[in-house]
């Protein structure tokens, strides 16, 4: 485990939260890396569903996009995009939705649309994608993001996706079926919603991360669990499997050709 980067610790911590056999709806990037790592460790029967309509994908390397051919070729079933969203996600057949975002607030609401105002944006982000629907309909939602002051904000610039809305029972009162975010895994530790207020509480820190670092990386007055746990350090096996996966991935996607 020695020499694990914060990113590796985050990915491994996220992978550990996925239980074997769950149906997991994953976006590309950090969620996909964590889910594919879990599948190689404790959760070989984790069912990976991608927005492109693949159910039960078993890629050998991490996909660059949610539509990589390997996701279809290794899937139990490939369905159309309307079907994956209506018959699978909206129907409540997804156990875990796995999301990232550009901004998160204390109630785990997410922004992936815009920094600045929508009408005159400072940074235009890609947009909602499937996030609002995943966060609404998955039985629970995991969020994986780097913990930074500009990302963990007092107030979202745009509410793309619902966490616990204004907190407390606002989410169930609004009629959401899914339980909402149960865990935010960052490169510094783990945040979980308070059972009553639904405000995110720093419940764990990764090995060697001081609580001051988490506070400094959070744009609201951060509640910290007492005692705050320390994440178990990555094991040698976890780290080896993750690095092998990343090396295999880099090699597979490396074919390079000058386009100019």
């Amino acid at each position, binding site marked *: 485990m020695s020499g694990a980067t914060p990113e590796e610790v985050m990915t491994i911590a996220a992978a550990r939260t996925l239980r074997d056999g769950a149906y997991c709806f994953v976006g*590309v*990037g950090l969620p996909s890396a964590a889910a594919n790592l879990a599948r190689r460790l404790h959760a070989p029967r984790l069912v990976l569903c991608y*927005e*492109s*309509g*693949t159910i039960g994908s078993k890629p050998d390397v991490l*996909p*660059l*996009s*949610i*539509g*990589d*051919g390997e*996701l*279809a070729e290794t899937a139990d079933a*490939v369905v*159309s*995009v*309307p079907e994956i*969203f*209506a018959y699978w*996600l*909206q129907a409540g057949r997804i156990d875990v939705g796995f999301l990232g975002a550009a901004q998160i607030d204390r109630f785990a*609401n997410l922004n992936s*649309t815009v920094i600045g105002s929508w009408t005159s*944006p*400072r*940074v*235009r982000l*890609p*947009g*909602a*994608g*499937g*996030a*609002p*629907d995943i*966060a*609404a*309909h998955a039985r629970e939602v995991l969020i994986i993001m780097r913990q930074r002051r500009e990302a963990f904000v007092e107030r979202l610039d*745009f*509410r*793309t*996706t*619902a966490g616990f*809305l*204004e907190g407390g029972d*606002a*989410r169930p009162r*609004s*009629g*959401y*079926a899914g339980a909402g975010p149960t865990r935010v895994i960052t490169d510094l530790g783990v945040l979980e919603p308070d059972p009553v207020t639904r405000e995110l509480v720093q419940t764990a820190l990764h090995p060697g991360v001081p609580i001051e670092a988490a506070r400094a990386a959070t744009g609201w007055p951060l509640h910290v669990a007492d005692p705050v746990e320390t994440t178990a350090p990555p094991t040698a096996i976890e780290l080896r499997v993750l690095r092998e996966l990343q090396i295999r991935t880099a090699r597979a*996607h490396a*074919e*390079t*050709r*000058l*386009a*100019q």
Partner: protein
Amino acid sequence: MVVDRLSDAIAELVHDGDVVALEGFTHLIPFAAGHELIRQGRRDLTLLRMTPDLIYDQLIGVGAVRRLVFSWGGNPGVGSLHRFRDAVENGWPEPLELIEHTHASMAAAYVAGASNLPFGVLRPTPGTFTASYSQAFRSVLCPFTGSELTAVAAHRPDVTVIHAQRADRTGNVQLWGIIGVQKEAVLAANRALVTVEEIVDVLTPVAGGVTIPASAVTAVCAVPGGAHPSYTQGYSRRDNAFYREWDAMSRDRERFLEWIERHVRGTATHAEHLSSIGAL
């Protein structure tokens, strides 16, 4: 109907001001047709797409697009679409009007269009932008339970353009692998253009294959490699390097325009284009 030249098909089917969906979900993105829109100087387009990527970045960057209806615009696995951002953030080369959807609402809007219904229905996502954005989302009550659902207006593009593996000589189209929302996008449209890798005598059945019958397809045109740098399962691999290189190429306005001049406007056909970027 099989058309020999893509340029003829685009000239005939896509007009300035049209609502056009060039659909594809990482797989089967109709780049060749998009380039032909640039060559023919189409303007004032409303473009629909769940996942606008590089070809939409190019169309936006040359000023062909007035409005974009979409749910996620990025360079998958790489980062931003710089021409898209430049248009939205700085109005260059022209302001770009946006209509924001979620993936689920885009899909439902295509399904509604394909079904000849004026709207699709979704379970609501209260407290998000969808709740107060009446251009795309409105409330509808279930007449049986009284519960509140979200309605989304149907997509009815003037033209849908997709790329597929193959077609037969009567115009039946076959695609397989990740099929995305292409069938619905074709069936929702008034006119449909399909570029294919090859035209064959008989479409032998393929596992996971979807057939779009000829009557739903206005024109079919053989354009081998027509999805490049996207891929066509069974025919070509995704050119991941191109996607990565696009990031640098598209950051700078001048460099982008030079690329378009040289590799799109400076080539007459998709084969020439592929050869000019070294992909043949």
